[in-house]
């Protein structure tokens, strides 16, 4: 019985905790919650000293009671008191303590109450029977009670495990990036039993620690070697049994060069002992699946972006060839006519040719400017935000448009005073100019597009309305896409202006909306909506 006297706690440590040695600091900052079960014995567990003392106490009480009742009730019936004591001990302290208490009760009853008294000899057959019953009852009850308790504990532990697994899966499902997913895996694998976990991945030729629970783990040479092996082979390196030299961590390689995850169990409550490892396994498997999902999503995104870039490039090339060649043809043709046919051309024809050259050069210039804006938008705009008078900026765009399209009228309406907004004046003017440019191109020459600025609660609305034939409903959603041209766009649209306008307005924190037919039942209205922020006191 010598080993039975060991303190209860020590038993657990020596039996299943390879981590018991150097892992003191990790206990303070435990990560994911574990299921917090008290560390109680399983029914077969060896009894502790306290259990035995309690058993002796209870049997002693029974003996005292029997002594006091001697003479009141017949001697054989006194054995029932001992039976009660044995039952109580078995239920409370498990199988072995129950057996021990029944032995004790057997001896005490024999010694104090069975003729001849104060000896361990038994004279009567019925006393032997009573003693045997006592022993059998203790053993049977202890066994049954222990089993029940074990099952209850096991069920509780399994429920805890399942709960932890459910939390883990839910957290995994919320994360999109591989980095975040790895973080969740690490946290939960370590959290199973307050152990440690690390994620290592390659940087150049060597592995480095990306993330660890608890932070700043101390990995020795054997651990690094094991991690390296797992990583190179894409396999698993199991930890060595406690007491042997070797890695204290198990390392599992992640797919697709995602690195390796290492873990080391913490102090496991005895009754979940067998479950912690399968739980970690399940978590790692689910983690791998989640990582694969994230990688897959990333690849799909990349493929989509690539396809979009390809489409954009194709559209850009066709736009370049068309929109650069047309004005250049006019300019070259016009100028060569003027040089070579000078004498034959009348003054009216000469002046008309010159006007054509000037107009086409202006168009070319605007087109190149738009291409530059497009590039700037793609590269990320360098905003020069300032407090600006939106009416003033809108007027600038109107003036520029009147200048570029001589002979076209544009009406302009603005409240006085116009509130200041926080925006980039040059970009906003460009966005608005593009809308006006678009309105002028797609409305009859005799009509005048209307530009207006209106103050609404918390925002400013700048509207460019035209009296053109409007945009078909199917095209309304696409007009702001780069290089999109409507079915009746004709030759003059480059498909760049509106998408640049949208890019700019979005960069300024606003939004842009196309409305067709506009209020009034015809034409198109484009609205730029910009937030009105509170201005700091000057």
């Amino acid at each position, binding site marked *: 019985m010598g080993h039975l006297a060991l303190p209860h706690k020590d038993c657990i440590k020596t039996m299943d905790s390879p981590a018991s040695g150097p892992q003191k600091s990790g206990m303070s900052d435990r990560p994911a919650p574990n299921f917090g079960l008290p560390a109680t014995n399983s029914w077969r567990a060896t009894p502790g000293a306290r259990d035995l003392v309690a058993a002796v106490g209870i049997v002693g009480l029974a003996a005292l009671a029997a002594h006091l009742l001697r003479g009141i009730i017949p001697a054989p019936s006194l054995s029932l008191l001992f039976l009660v004591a044995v039952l109580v001990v078995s239920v409370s302290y498990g199988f072995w303590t129950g057996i021990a208490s029944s032995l004790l009760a057997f001896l005490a009853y024999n010694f104090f109450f069975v003729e001849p008294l104060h000896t361990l000899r038994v004279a009567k057959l019925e006393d032997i029977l009573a003693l045997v019953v006592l022993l059998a009852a203790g053993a049977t009850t202890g066994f049954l009670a222990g089993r029940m308790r074990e099952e209850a504990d096991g069920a509780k532990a399994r429920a805890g495990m399942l709960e932890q697994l459910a939390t883990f899966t839910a957290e995994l499902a919320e994360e999109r990036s591989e980095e975040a997913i790895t973080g969740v895996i690490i946290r939960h694998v370590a959290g199973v039993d307050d152990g440690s976990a690390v994620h290592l991945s390659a940087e150049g030729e060597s592995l480095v620690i990306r993330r660890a629970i608890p932070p700043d783990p101390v990995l020795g040479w054997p651990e690094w070697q094991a991690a390296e092996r797992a990583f190179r082979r894409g396999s698993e390196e199991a930890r060595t049994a406690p007491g042997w030299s070797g890695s204290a961590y198990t390392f599992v390689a992640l797919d697709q060069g995602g690195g390796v995850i290492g873990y080391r169990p913490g102090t496991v409550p005895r009754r979940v002992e067998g479950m912690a490892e399968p739980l970690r396994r399940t978590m790692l498997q689910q983690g791998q699946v989640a990582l694969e999902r994230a990688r897959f999503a990333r690849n799909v995104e990349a493929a989509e972006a690539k396809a979009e870039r390809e489409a954009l490039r194709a559209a850009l090339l066709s736009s370049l060839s068309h929109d650069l060649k047309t004005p250049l043809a006019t300019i070259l043709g016009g100028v060569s006519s003027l040089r070579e046919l000078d004498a034959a051309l009348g003054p009216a024809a000469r002046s008309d040719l010159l006007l054509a050259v000037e107009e086409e050069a202006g168009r070319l210039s605007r087109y190149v400017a738009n291409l530059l804006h497009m590039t700037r938008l793609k590269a990320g705009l360098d905003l020069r935000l300032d407090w600006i008078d939106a009416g003033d900026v809108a007027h600038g765009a109107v003036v520029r448009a009147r200048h570029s399209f001589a002979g076209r009228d544009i009406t302009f309406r603005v409240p*006085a*005073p116009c509130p200041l907004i926080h925006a*980039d*004046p040059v970009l906003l003017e*460009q966005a608005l100019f593009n809308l006006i440019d678009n309105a002028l191109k797609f409305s009859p020459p005799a009509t005048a597009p209307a530009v207006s600025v209106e103050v609404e609660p918390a925002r400013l609305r700048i509207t460019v309305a035209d009296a053109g034939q409007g945009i078909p409903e199917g095209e309304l959603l696409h007009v702001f896409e780069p290089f999109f041209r409507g079915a009746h766009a004709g030759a003059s649209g480059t498909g760049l202006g509106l998408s640049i306008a949208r890019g700019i307005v979005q960069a300024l924190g606003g939004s842009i909306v196309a409305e067709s037919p506009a209020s009034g039942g015809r034409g198109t209205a484009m609205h730029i909506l910009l937030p009105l922020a509170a201005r700091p006191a*000057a």
Partner: protein
Amino acid sequence: MSGRPSILIVDDEPQIQRFLRHSLEATGYEVLLANSGAAALRAVASTPPDLVILDLGLPDLDGKAVLGQLRQASDVPVIVLSARDEEAEKIAALDLGANDFVAKPFGIGELLARIRACLRLRRTGGTGSEALHLGEISIDLAAHRVERGGAPVRLTPKEFDLLVLLVSHAGRVLTHRQILTKIWGPAHVEDVAYLRVFIGQLRQKVESNPAEPRLIVTEPGVGYRAKAEG
């Protein structure tokens, strides 16, 4: 100085030089050419021109560096040529002492108007006279009185100072920083919002249609300019 004002064109693009030389000579200016920053500085030192047209994108020296060195030796008016959407470049050049800018590509009319404004200011030496005019606005400097088409216009002292500053530099752009420093002092160079409010108020009083200002025009992202016509 001969009768014809001389203009030094500093540009490395032969086609731009060609176009400018023909147009400016046809307009009646004497034209000098330099195709690098170093050549420009030598030319200014040997035969000082009446005006310099400086392209900010030069091969050897940064246009702003040329401007800085030029300003150490001379106060000749300088008009810089810059790309359309390089506001930061424009402002930097103006703050370094350039008198005005023209954004490429430009029509010859725009450049000629800038040249005239700069040369006129140089001749009159800024605010020497007792009265200033801008369109139908006339300003009596001594009496602090402003009239529009003969009718008196009531301005606050700051509005008056602002109007005088702009009109006395008519045709030339003034940066926000220059205006704020002159009118409100160096401590207020960042208060652009304040300036915009004042410009708005001033336009309400002096423009015939404040929504479409013709006298005080905005140079987006740079500053303001009083129109020189008339």
